[in-house]
């Protein structure tokens, strides 16, 4: 077992010796739109401005809190930094049909996608939701955070500002 892990850990070092400091590539996976289309995460686009990707579900209270709190600040955030928020629901067949009415009911102005069998959640190695990612101009992950407590969105916006000013993310 130890050898296998050691070997696996070696592979990236062997094949990418000239690795430089940069973010993690966002995995390419298919998602569903609320109107039944299939899209790829490679279609995420915000013209070189930061993107926040937030994983949630209709039954997840802290997730809904996070998205509701950000929703109240979203216009101001967009104006200041051009940031875009993408909300990805992992609701499965039990609750998937509730997502559109739920989002409408809350009045959220986000791009909302469905990940009904958690393929993207798994590709991003998420343990539990809420889990939030911050993507830079090249759509690479430069920061992530799991769970949500009231006020976390302010910290997140500080990081978005750093990013949009071209600084490196520093916690």
């Amino acid at each position: 077992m130890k050898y296998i892990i050691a070997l696996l850990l070696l592979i990236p070092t062997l094949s990418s010796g000239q690795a430089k400091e940069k973010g993690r590539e966002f995995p390419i996976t298919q998602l569903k739109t609320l109107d039944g289309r299939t899209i790829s995460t490679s279609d995420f686009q915000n013209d070189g401005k930061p993107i926040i990707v937030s994983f949630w579900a209709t039954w997840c209270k802290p997730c809904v809190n996070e998205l509701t709190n950000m929703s109240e600040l979203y216009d101001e955030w967009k104006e200041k930094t051009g940031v875009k928020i993408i909300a990805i629901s992992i609701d499965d067949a039990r609750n998937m049909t509730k997502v559109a009415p739920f989002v409408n009911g809350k009045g959220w102005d986000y791009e909302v996608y469905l990940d009904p069998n958690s393929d993207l959640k798994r590709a991003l190695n998420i343990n539990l939701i809420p889990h939030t990612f911050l993507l830079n101009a090249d759509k690479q992950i430069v920061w992530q955070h799991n769970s949500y407590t009231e006020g976390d969105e302010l910290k997140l916006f500080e990081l978005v500002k750093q990013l949009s000013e071209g600084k490196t993310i520093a916690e």
Partner: protein
Amino acid sequence: MKSLLNLLIALVFFAAFPSNFAAQNILTDQAELHGNFQLDAQYYNVDTLIGAPLVPEKILSNGFMNLWYTKGNFSAGIRYENYLNVMQGFDSRYKGSGIPFRFATYSNDKLEATVGNFYEQFGGGLILRAYEERGLGFDNVLDGARVKYEPIPGLIVKALVARQRAFFSLSPGILRGGDIELNINDAFFAGKDFKTRVVFGASALSRFQDDQDPIYNLPENVAAFGGRLNIIRGKFNIAAEYGYKINDPSASNKLIYRPGQALNLSATYSTKGFGLLVSAKRLDNFDFRSDRSAAGNAYNINFLPAATRQHTYNLPATIYPYATQPNGEIGYQVELSWRIKKGSLLGGKYGTEITVNASGTNGLDKTIAANDTLGYESEFFKVGKEVYFRDYHLEIHKKFNKSWKSTLMLLYWVYNKDVVQGLKGFGTIYAPMAVLDVAYKINDKNTIRVEAQSLLTEQDGGSWAMGLIEYTYSPNWFVAVVDQYNFGNKSEDLRLHYLTGNVGYMKKGNRIMIGYGRQRAGIFCVGGVCRNVPASNGLTISILSSF
């Protein structure tokens, strides 16, 4: 172990000697290795009063780590899991440690090919869903090969052959199947902006398992078919999914030869500030397993979630949650939600959100046919007399100002314990419940939240009250104290408090949580799976990390 070696060989091969079709990416893209990790452990105190089972090991733990490697169009990964020994409340068939998950995938814009383990669902999962709920110890991942292909935009074709994971071994049954999904608008009317969108899907799956039964002549190849249709027009969305399974005598259906059927219907209408959902479902002999003798939450091929609201507040979520009866049930759900506008009398400065939900499930109307190998007859649209479950509730959420917000929930439940839990002599439980959740934000970083809940019933274990105080310090800390009090227990000696304290620290993709106290026996459900957790008393620790 041997297959893992093969995988590694393939992996090194891909990394070192890129073949033509992947050459460009392999040479230019950077290799990345990511993963996640989780360890849960508990030290168990002896507590005979609450009926906590004696744990000779004193300490039990579950752990896993995923490692995923990606480079260009290629990805591969493994998951190591250990259960030393498996924690209380999880299936005891999780024994020891091993690598039950390893895969390699090649993908480009149109094609994706995977060998090894993969998760998959056809449509809503009515005839196939491989998924994991790690918190419940459920994982029915497939092990075999799968190809996904998109020949034209709007058309996705999938084909697979696999066996299914069962703990640290594989199912006796072999699954072969395929699925097509056709988005009519994207496939035939690309670029045209029609008001109506139509998505159609069809799938088929066959399970092979040899018949070694000395008495019964059992079908070795059992086929199941699924069809689905989704029509979206403006604010309306209508979805229907139907499944059919040929005769499949099993331990679950008590060896009857009746074919199985399943139907899910739903319609939603929603606009800014208003949402309406109406859904109905019928299941008839639709338990589909990769081992016909299977029992418990294992070897499940298809996904049959309960058509009820998924609750998260403690008492409604864990005392009497409904679990789907795959052998026969018929039910409905209606949910209406709206938002009273900001600035109105009832809306206040931030608006008020109201949700009303009603759901009900009954048994099928069955006529038992004597000496008939089909088992019974049942009229499709007729609702049986036996009540399995009812949930009527009202939820009001209101933010008063920058500091205060609150949720009030009132519920009334009817729960047929004998049917839902497969027991005898408990009968039906009638339980009104109430939940009040109030959060006070002291400033940008500090918040206090209080919950008070009650469940009133004369039956079963009697009435419960629950209280919670939670303090969070953004973005890193939380502390919570929870007390659950079984004040209505018929036996005075069992009117006990279950007091627990938890502290957690979060940073980036990491979280550590420590808890101490008594935990009530409960049922934890996510999606279609429920887990019975026995009462316990002790120290718990949970560490998780995503990297």
